[in-house]
């Protein structure tokens, strides 16, 4: 009877195990990197119907975040301004700019400008803006330096672990309440020893105790 398997086949099981190991390793590495919000979300900068530049409006015009996002300290949802808000200024300047045509049309007809949603939490996570900005968490913590962005880009993963990191150690992310809307300000914890002390006092006096269990965000 001839040999069914050549001698080299003896190595096969080992080879298979090694190849499989490598394959699984690559797959695992791939999934952990490519399938997490760190990869899928960060850097997302879609084209908007109107090329609105936050950098220009904040740094050149000097608008506060709350001029447009007027309900961020009242509501769960940070509102995107109505076209009427845009027209408060743009009925005076750049009244004929073709780039602003969608806004003018929207303000005239009442139909919405279809802004593309960038920072979106999943439907089952109930994030509330008002509680964060009223209690020392600045916009910049989740949205990055929007004041320097010409095109808004997703800078943080906004994954559950991202949320929890902060909820577990809120002192590290707190700002002086008056600095919340100043995106260039520093966190208290980054202001040396005095700042760290202030942050600890903040946590104590304001009874800061962010929820770490499911009911905090999921209903």
């Amino acid at each position, binding site marked *: 009877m001839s040999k069914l398997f050549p001698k080299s086949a003896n190595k096969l099981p080992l080879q298979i195990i090694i190849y499989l190991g490598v394959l699984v390793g690559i797959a695992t590495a791939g999934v952990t990197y490519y*399938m997490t919000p760190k990869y*899928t*979300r960060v850097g*997302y900068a*879609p084209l908007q119907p109107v090329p609105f530049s936050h950098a220009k409006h904040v740094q050149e015009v000097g608008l506060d975040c709350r001029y447009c996002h007027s*309900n961020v*300290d*009242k*509501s*769960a*949802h940070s*509102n*995107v*301004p*109505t*076209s*009427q*808000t845009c027209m408060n200024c743009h009925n005076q300047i750049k009244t004929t700019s073709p780039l602003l045509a969608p806004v003018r049309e*929207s*303000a*005239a*007809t*009442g*139909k*919405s*400008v*279809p*802004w*593309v*949603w960038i920072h*979106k939490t*999943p*439907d*089952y996570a*109930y994030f*509330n803006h*008002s*509680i964060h900005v*009223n*209690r020392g968490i600045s916009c910049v913590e989740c949205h990055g330096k929007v004041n320097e962005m010409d095109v808004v880009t997703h800078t943080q993963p906004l994954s559950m672990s991202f949320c929890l990191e902060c909820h577990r150690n809120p002192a590290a992310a707190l700002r002086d*309440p008056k600095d919340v809307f100043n995106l260039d300000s520093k966190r208290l914890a980054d202001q040396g020893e005095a700042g760290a002390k202030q942050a600890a006092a903040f946590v104590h*006096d*304001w*009874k800061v*105790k962010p*929820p*770490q*269990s*499911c*009911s*905090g965000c*999921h*209903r």
Partner: protein
Amino acid sequence: MKRIFEHPAPSARELNGPTYWRSLDELAASPGFVDQLKREFPQGAAELDGVDRRHFMKIMAASFALGGVGLAGCRRPEVNILPFGKSVEGIIPGLPQYYATAMPLRQSAIPLLAETHQGRPTKLEGNPTYTPHGGASSLLAQASILDLYDPDRATAHRKGGAVLKAEAVNDLLASVGKTYTASQGAGLAFLADQSSSPTRARLVKKLRRKLPKAVWAEYEPVNDEPPIAAARAVFGADVKPIYQFAKAKRILSLDADFFHAESGSLYYAREFAKGRRVKSKDDAMNRLYVAESAFTLTGSMADHRLRLASSHMLALAAAIGTKTLDTEILKPLTDGLDAFVSQKWVEECAQDLIDHKGASLVVAGAHLPPQVHAIAYAINALLGNIGQTVDFVAVEPASAASISDLAAAVKSGSVKTLVILGGNPAYNAPADLDWAKLQVSVADVICLGYAADETSALAGTQLAAAHYLESWGDARTADGTVVPVQPMILPLFGGITQIEVLARIAGEASADGYALVSDTITALAGGDADKAMRRFLHDGILAGSAFAKTAVNFDQRGARALFRDDPKKIETFSAKNLEVRFVTDHKMDDGRFNNNGWLQECPDPITKISWDNAILVSPKLGKELGIYPQGSKLQIARVEENEFSIGKENSRIFELSVGGRKIKGPVHIQPGLSNYTVVVPLGYGRTVTGHVGKGAGFNAYPARTVAGSDVATGGTLTDTGTRLLLANTQEHWSMEGRDIVREANFDEYQKNPGYVDDIGTESHSPAIYGADKTPTNDNKLSREDRAKQTTARAKEIPRGGSMYATPKFDGHHQWGMSIDLNTCIGCNACVVACQAENNIPIVGKDQVMRGREMHWIRLDRYYSDGRAEGGAFGGEGNREIPEDPQVSLQPVACAQCELAPCEVVCPVNATVHDEEGLNTMAYNRCIGTRYCANNCPYKVRRFNFFDFNQRQLDSLYLGQLGPKGMPELVKMVKNPEVTVRMRGVMEKCTYCVQRIQNGKIQHKVAMAQAGRPGDVVVPDGTIKTACQQVCPVEAIEFGNIDDPKSAVSLAKAREQDYSLLGYLNIRPRTTYLGKLRNPNPKMPDYQSLPLSRVEYNSKNHPPSDHGAHGHEGHGPAPAAPKAEKKHGMIDTAKTLGGLS
């Protein structure tokens, strides 16, 4: 080591608890029932029908392959944010807005606050500004919002099949007015439903002045106001009574279901609870006598309940009157009553009323003849109750013609154009009028209706009516307070309102709803018109507009005139001569809510049947009809044919014949009915209705005539030989008849307020909180100390020596709930309020029959008759269906156990505790193993067997092959603050976590902005759960038990606070306050112990210590030897707890 916790076998001596039985199956321990007890879920509830594992894997393999193809779509889909183009005043995206409005119903209305999200109403709550209701609302009001988004509602105006535009409708209506101006309205007739709207009344008056010859008729199939003829005779004035139950210490109800069927029932229930609630042993408690033929919620609360045919109520009233008024005039009326009521019952009841002059009250049902009301008024007048427990207010006498008058006019051919405004006469008009035929004979019929129905189907012109949440209007509550009906949204389908129709026909200058209402209100209010209207809309009531109380004088001569006719001899009923009672259904009302899924699925509070109505017969009649089950197969109106019929009631269809008119319907044997009274709920069996209502129940209207519209006699029942499966939820989720509802008589409570601790296992249970910390010992502490102790225990770590790590309960609040069983009337409003708040889907009759209903809170209704001795399970003495049981009601939702059994078995940690003591449920983590439901002792977890929010109920089993998605309209009712759950996910009560979180956030934000950021604890009473908010009797307290002074802590500190199944050491955060009964020791039917306690005692104590106070001396010490054997499981638990 695997620990096996064996529940004590529920046999005669070992089962520790009163015998409650929720179904006759349970009482009889039929084999099917016992089998069901052993199963975690009813048969079929936990299996996937028609798909075996192999087939399942095949399908799944295919879908996995498809999933691979779909990987390209990994990128998140692009989603838009769509802000308003023009800013809208007041709207803040993400924050709800609240507007005052009201739900009109017949001659009254329920003031409401509507919650809207960006202009979309999602939830209704009672308007707290209207203090008589105190923010409560009813089952119907809660569910009415679903009708707004009913996909089957009328979406266009039509004439002869062609769609009419709004302008064409306006022209058409204006032309009606013009055509008949010349003839002064001769040939024109209106048929409207009843309304309390001052604007409508004003327009009708104008219209009738302009067209005096037009017929204005009003019709309602049911009458919920006392007949004005009685008041006119007795007091010589057009007045109606407003009862003040809170002031009444002794109440006698003559067939009056004032918790549900009477106008103003919400106010009455609330006031009744005020007199019923006992907070300490020094409080007084009212006593309720009820004589009734049906079994109503009011009857279930009675301390003395008399089963008596409605036709005999006059005799009973006369007998009570004879005694209380000390007169012989009424004596002839009572002839023959002795056969049905013992003389002593009447005398002692009457004496009790006499003993409480000025604090007693006699109430007669609206359906009873004027004579009964006249006697009730006379008793109230002579006992000095008028001005105390009952006020009279002047009302305008009805000037409208009746439907019979209109029918006569139509028959004579004098009606050329008929305008029908609301109502559904073709479905619900008295059968002897043959309305459908009459309506067709009119040349031109214009019908304003909300949805396509029996009436609009026969009309040439169909106008789509607007929902009340789309309408400008006004209404009066039962006490006459004018309330606004304010639109929350523009009419979704261009519907119009009655006042707009009337204004156009009357040729008013403006037919704009707002202008019409504004004219009425400003005229009523006086002063600055604009200001008055704004205040009216803001407050939701017109202050001071309630009917004025009028002094009334009892006029004996007038009253006598009512009794001039020779008294009819009292009729004796039998199986060959049945009394038939037509009653409004708890859910369908008169049929107007027929297409409302929330109401259809909500079980009837007494029969527990959902999706159907049934002919209710007494056990005695059942026996005579030969449908009385024998032996161990004792059950309701069916013989068990196979085990699959458990949970489904395999009912027989009978033909009910009254006066030659016949209807067919399933029969349900209902304990507690008058022997030969057959109760037929109205509102089902609609032929022209939407998808939900189609096929639900049978129509009882064809047996109703003008004369016998509420009570008819001479009925007979014959078996048709066919059967129908009814979805009856009463057998689901049984708790095996232990010490579930703990009750005592009021006198026992006064001697021993902590009686609840002598019932059940905890009195001799081992250390839940420590060896000497039994509930009995706790009750030796002062209330303040008990409240503080509760607070301390809420945060105790480790809890109960448990090895399972739960998070530290170190939040700023610790949530807890207390439910007062003494005031709960079982109205089911909490069930539907929860459904509306928490996006709970309906599952349909088929799924309910499989035990898959999704309600997060349910109302258990237990019967006890004191005879279920020797164990309810197959013992002797349980071979008869009791004719007169006591009822105990108990709402059960997730109790948020501190040591939650569901949590330890979840393989994926989808259900875990949070730091504030909530047993949270993370839907997106749940993989649907259902272990948690298996391990839940309360059976309050609900599983999404299908994608109820995405699939139509009739195509659930098609799975992926069926159509997906819901109509946009249906989606609009969803609460955006709560996740809409998908298939394969477990869900349950969360204490309305969305309200808790939003309440906390709003408080913290307000405090941070007010400069007091450290003030993070929400003030007591700010956060209310949906069930607590809606409860008309304020039975539910919810709040922070970390604060010993909060309302919930104070409630829990009351002596009669107990934990349901507390001996399991699960430490539920929801606890119950024991129920009390207040019977009169002099009454012949006096029970010295509640019947459930009699059963409890006879089961757990030898007959020797049986007796009036059989439980006295039943403390930990003497029971200890028994306890050791009895509670082997707990001892095991104790040992194991220390084992580690």
